[in-house]
C-alpha cells in the first residue's frame, strides 16, 4: 500500500472509514511539514532548466556591473582632504546612523503590517490554519528570506566598503570586510525589527512614531544638535577602518537580539495580515517587474490598508449636474484622502524643502531627490485622473472624449500639488542655515508644483511599457532605448521644476538677482507643463496615427 507521506511513518493509521477522519495523537505535524516542504522544493528544483539559471545569473551580473559602475562614478575616487576627513570623523557616524535609523523605521513599518514575510496564500490557508506550531512553520521561510537578504547586504556592503576605501584611504581589505559586516548588520536591524514588530503586533501608529523618533535622533546627531543617537553605533561600526570604536559592536549585538527576538515571536504574527500580504505582495512584485508604477502604487495602498475616509474632511453638497463635474469629482476624492496619505504628502513636502535648502547650500545632486519627492507627491495628487485611467469603461461610455476628460482632471491635481509645493517652499525658506530667500521661494513655487505634476501625468497616462503596437517591429536596441526613456522621462520633468532654485543660486554667486537667474527656468518649466497638457489632449490621436503608419509600413493595409 502506497503511503502518501514523504516523511517517516506514524505507526497505526487513523481512520477515514467515515467522512470524519481522526488525527493520530502522536503525529509529528512539524516533521511532516518539513518533509513535505523538502518534497515540494525538490520538485520545483527538478523543473528548473540550467539554461534559465545561467540566464538569470547573466542578467544579475550585468545589472550588478552597471550598478557598481554608476555608483563608482557618483562617489568618485579622489581622496578626501585632511579637513574633510576630520569632518567625516566628527559627523560621519551620526549620518551613517541615519541609514540604520531608516532601515529600522522601514522594518518597523513593514512589521506593523505583517511583514516582512510574504507566504504563498495556500500556505497561509493550509499550514497556518492547521494545528502545526506556527513558530516552527514560519521559521523556515523567515530564515530563508533573512539568509537571502543577508547575502545581498554583505555584497552591497563590500562594494560600498571598496568605494569608500578609494576616498577615505586605508586598507581596502579592512574597508571591504567592515562594509560586509555593516551590510549584514543593517539587514539584521531591518529584518529583525520587522519580525519583532510583526510578532509583537506593534500598532502601525506606534511603529511610525518610533521610526520617526529614530530618524529624528539620527539627523539631530548628524547636525550636532545632540551628542549621540541610538543608531550612531552603526555609524561607528561602518567607520571602523577610519577610527576603531568598540561601541560599534552595539549595532551588531542589537541586530542579533532583534533577529533572535523576532524569530522567537514568529508564531504570534497576525494571520489576517499574512493572508492580505500573501495575495498582494506577489502581485506587487509582478507589477514592479513589469514597471507598472500605477499598479504598484494601488497595491501598496491596499497592503497598507490605505482606504478613503467614509466621512470626507469637508462635506460638499451634491447639487444637480454641477458646473465642473470632473473637477468636483476630483475634489471629492481629495477630500476623502486618508490621514496616512496626507501625512505622506506633508513628509514629501518636508523632504523636498530640505533638499532645496541643501541645493542652496551647495549640494547640487539634491536636485534629483527634490524632483523625485515632488514626482512621488504628484503620483498621489493625480489620483482622480489615475482612477479614470484604471476604470476606462465609465469614461469611454461618456459622450465627452477621453482626452478631454483627462485634461479636465488636471486643475484639481494642480491645486493639490501647489499646496505641497507651498509647504516645501515654506520649509525651504524657514529661518536657519541654507534658507532660500523669500523671493526665490515665491518664484520657484509654481515650477516646483508643475514639474512634479507634469511628470506624474506622463507616468500615469503612459502606463506600463509594452512591446506591442507598432513598436513590435523595431529592433530590440531601439525598444531598450525607448524603455529607458519612458522610465526616466517622468521624473526628469519633475527635476526640471527644481532648476529655477539651482539657477537662482548660480545668479546670486555671479552677483545678479536670484529671481533674474531663475526666470528663464521658470518659463521653461511652465512651457514644459503646457506641452505635457497638450500631449494629454492629443496623445490618443498621435498614438492612433502612429499605429496606422506602422501598420502601413509593415504592409498590413
Amino acid at each position, binding site marked *: *500500500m*502506497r*503511503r*502518501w*507521506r514523504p*516523511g517517516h*511513518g*506514524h505507526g497505526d*493509521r*487513523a481512520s*477515514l472509514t*467515515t*467522512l*470524519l*477522519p*481522526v*488525527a*493520530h*495523537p502522536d*503525529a509529528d*505535524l512539524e516533521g*511532516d*511539514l518539513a*518533509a*513535505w516542504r523538502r518534497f*515540494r522544493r525538490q*520538485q*520545483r528544483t527538478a523543473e528548473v532548466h540550467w539554461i534559465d539559471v545561467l540566464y538569470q545569473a547573466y542578467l544579475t551580473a550585468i545589472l550588478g556591473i552597471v550598478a557598481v559602475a554608476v555608483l563608482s562614478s557618483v562617489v568618485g575616487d579622489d581622496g578626501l582632504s585632511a579637513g574633510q576627513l576630520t569632518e567625516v570623523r566628527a559627523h560621519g557616524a551620526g549620518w551613517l546612523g541615519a541609514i540604520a535609523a531608516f532601515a529600522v523605521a522601514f522594518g518597523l513599518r513593514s512589521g506593523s503590517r505583517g511583514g516582512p514575510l510574504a507566504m*504563498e*496564500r*495556500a500556505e497561509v*490557508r*493550509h*499550514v497556518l*490554519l*492547521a*494545528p*502545526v*506550531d506556527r513558530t516552527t512553520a514560519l521559521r523556515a521561510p523567515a530564515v530563508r528570506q533573512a539568509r537571502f537578504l543577508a547575502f545581498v547586504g554583505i555584497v552591497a556592503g563590500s562594494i560600498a566598503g571598496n568605494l569608500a576605501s578609494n576616498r577615505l584611504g586605508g586598507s581596502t581589505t579592512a574597508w571591504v570586510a567592515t562594509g560586509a559586516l555593516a551590510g549584514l548588520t543593517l539587514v539584521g536591524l531591518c529584518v529583525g525589527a520587522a519580525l519583532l514588530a510583526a510578532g509583537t503586533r506593534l500598532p502601525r501608529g506606534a511603529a511610525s512614531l518610533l521610526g520617526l523618533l529614530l530618524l529624528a535622533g539620527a539627523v539631530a546627531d548628524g547636525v550636532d544638535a545632540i551628542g549621540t543617537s541610538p543608531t550612531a553605533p552603526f555609524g561607528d561600526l561602518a567607520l571602523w577602518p577610519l577610527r576603531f570604536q568598540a561601541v560599534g559592536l552595539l549595532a551588531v549585538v542589537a541586530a542579533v537580539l532583534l533577529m533572535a527576538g523576532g524569530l522567537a515571536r514568529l508564531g504570534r504574527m*497576525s*494571520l*489576517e495580515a499574512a*493572508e492580505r500580504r500573501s495575495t498582494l505582495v506577489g502581485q506587487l512584485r509582478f507589477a514592479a517587474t513589469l514597471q507598472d508604477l500605477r499598479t504598484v502604487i494601488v497595491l501598496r495602498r491596499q497592503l497598507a*490598508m490605505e*482606504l478613503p*475616509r*467614509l*466621512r470626507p474632511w469637508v462635506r460638499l453638497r451634491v447639487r444637480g449636474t454641477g458646473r465642473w463635474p470632473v473637477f468636483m469629482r476630483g475634489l471629492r476624492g481629495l477630500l476623502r484622502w486618508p490621514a496616512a496619505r496626507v501625512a505622506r504628502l506633508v513628509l514629501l513636502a518636508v523632504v523636498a524643502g530640505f533638499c532645496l535648502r541643501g541645493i542652496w547650500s551647495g549640494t547640487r545632486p539634491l536636485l534629483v531627490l527634490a524632483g523625485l519627492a515632488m514626482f512621488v507627491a504628484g503620483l498621489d495628487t493625480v489620483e482622480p485622473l489615475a482612477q479614470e485611467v484604471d476604470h476606462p469603461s465609465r469614461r469611454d461610455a461618456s459622450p465627452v472624449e477621453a482626452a478631454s476628460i483627462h485634461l479636465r482632471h488636471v486643475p484639481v491635481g494642480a491645486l493639490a500639488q501647489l499646496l505641497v509645493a507651498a509647504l516645501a517652499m515654506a520649509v525651504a525658506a524657514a529661518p536657519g542655515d541654507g534658507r532660500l530667500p523669500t523671493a526665490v521661494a515665491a518664484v520657484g513655487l509654481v515650477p516646483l508644483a508643475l514639474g512634479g505634476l507634469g511628470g506624474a501625468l506622463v507616468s500615469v497616462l503612459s502606463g506600463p511599457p509594452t512591446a506591442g503596437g507598432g513598436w513590435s517591429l523595431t529592433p530590440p536596441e531601439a525598444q531598450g532605448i525607448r524603455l529607458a526613456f519612458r522610465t526616466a522621462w517622468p521624473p526628469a520633468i519633475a527635476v526640471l521644476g527644481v532648476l529655477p532654485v539651482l539657477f537662482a543660486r548660480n545668479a546670486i554667486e555671479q552677483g545678479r538677482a536670484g529671481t533674474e537667474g531663475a526666470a528663464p527656468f521658470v518659463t521653461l518649466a511652465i512651457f514644459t507643463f503646457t506641452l505635457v497638457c497638450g500631449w494629454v489632449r492629443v496623445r490618443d490621436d498621435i498614438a492612433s496615427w502612429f499605429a496606422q503608419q506602422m501598420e502601413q509600413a509593415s504592409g498590413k493595409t
Partner: protein
Amino acid sequence: MARPDPRPPVLEAASATKAYADLVALEPLSLAVPAGQLVALVGHNGSGKSTFLRLAAGLLELTDGSITIVGEPAGSSGARAATSFLPDEPVLYDDLSVREHLAYVAALHGVVVEEADLDDLLERVGLSHRADDLPARFSRGLRQKASIALGLVRPFEVLLVDEPFVGLDAPGKTALLGILDELHRDGAAIVVATHDPTFVERVDRCIALRDGEVVHDGPATPTDVLRLVGG
C-alpha cells in the same frame, strides 16, 4: 428566535465584532451552535456572513468580543484542529496534484491516509478522474470540488462552509448536499453561508444577517429567507 439547545455548544460567539477603521463589517454577534447542528447563514451581500465564518476559522481577528470553538479561542491551536473551513474561493497550491494536496493537508492534521481512502474521497466529490492533475489548471467548479475534498480529508468538529454551491454543476451540488447530510448525521456542527434560499429546507436552523446584525434565528422556509434578506 430558536429555543436554546440543551447540547453544549462547539461554536460560541459572544458579541463578536469586526471593524475596519470606521467601517463595521460585523455588528456584535452572539450565537451558539451545538454539535450535530446544521445551520444556514443567510444574508445579502455585505451582511457579514463571510466575515463571521473567517473570524470563526481564525483567518480574521476580532475587533471586540470572542469566538470559541470547542471551548478554545478561534485561531488557537485547539480551535484550528477542530475547525475545517471551506472558503468561497478555492485556495490551492500551483505545484501539487489533487492527490498530493489531500495527502499534504491530511499530514498537517495528523491523519495518515492510504491511497484507497483518497480514492474514496475523490470519488465522493467527483474528482477521481482528475486525481493526478494540477488543480491550478482546473475550471472554477473543479477547483471548488478539490477545495471541498481538502476540507473533508482532515478531522473536524465544526465545518464552516462559505458559498459552497458557486461554480458547482448539478451533480457536484447533489454530491455536496449528500456529503453535508452525512456529516450532519455523523455529528459535526456545520455552518453554511449561502445565497441559496432552498438550502434552508435541509437545515435545523437558519440565521439571517442584515447589515451585520442577526434579524432571524430559528427554522425558516425559502419564502421567509426571501422576505428577511431579499433573496
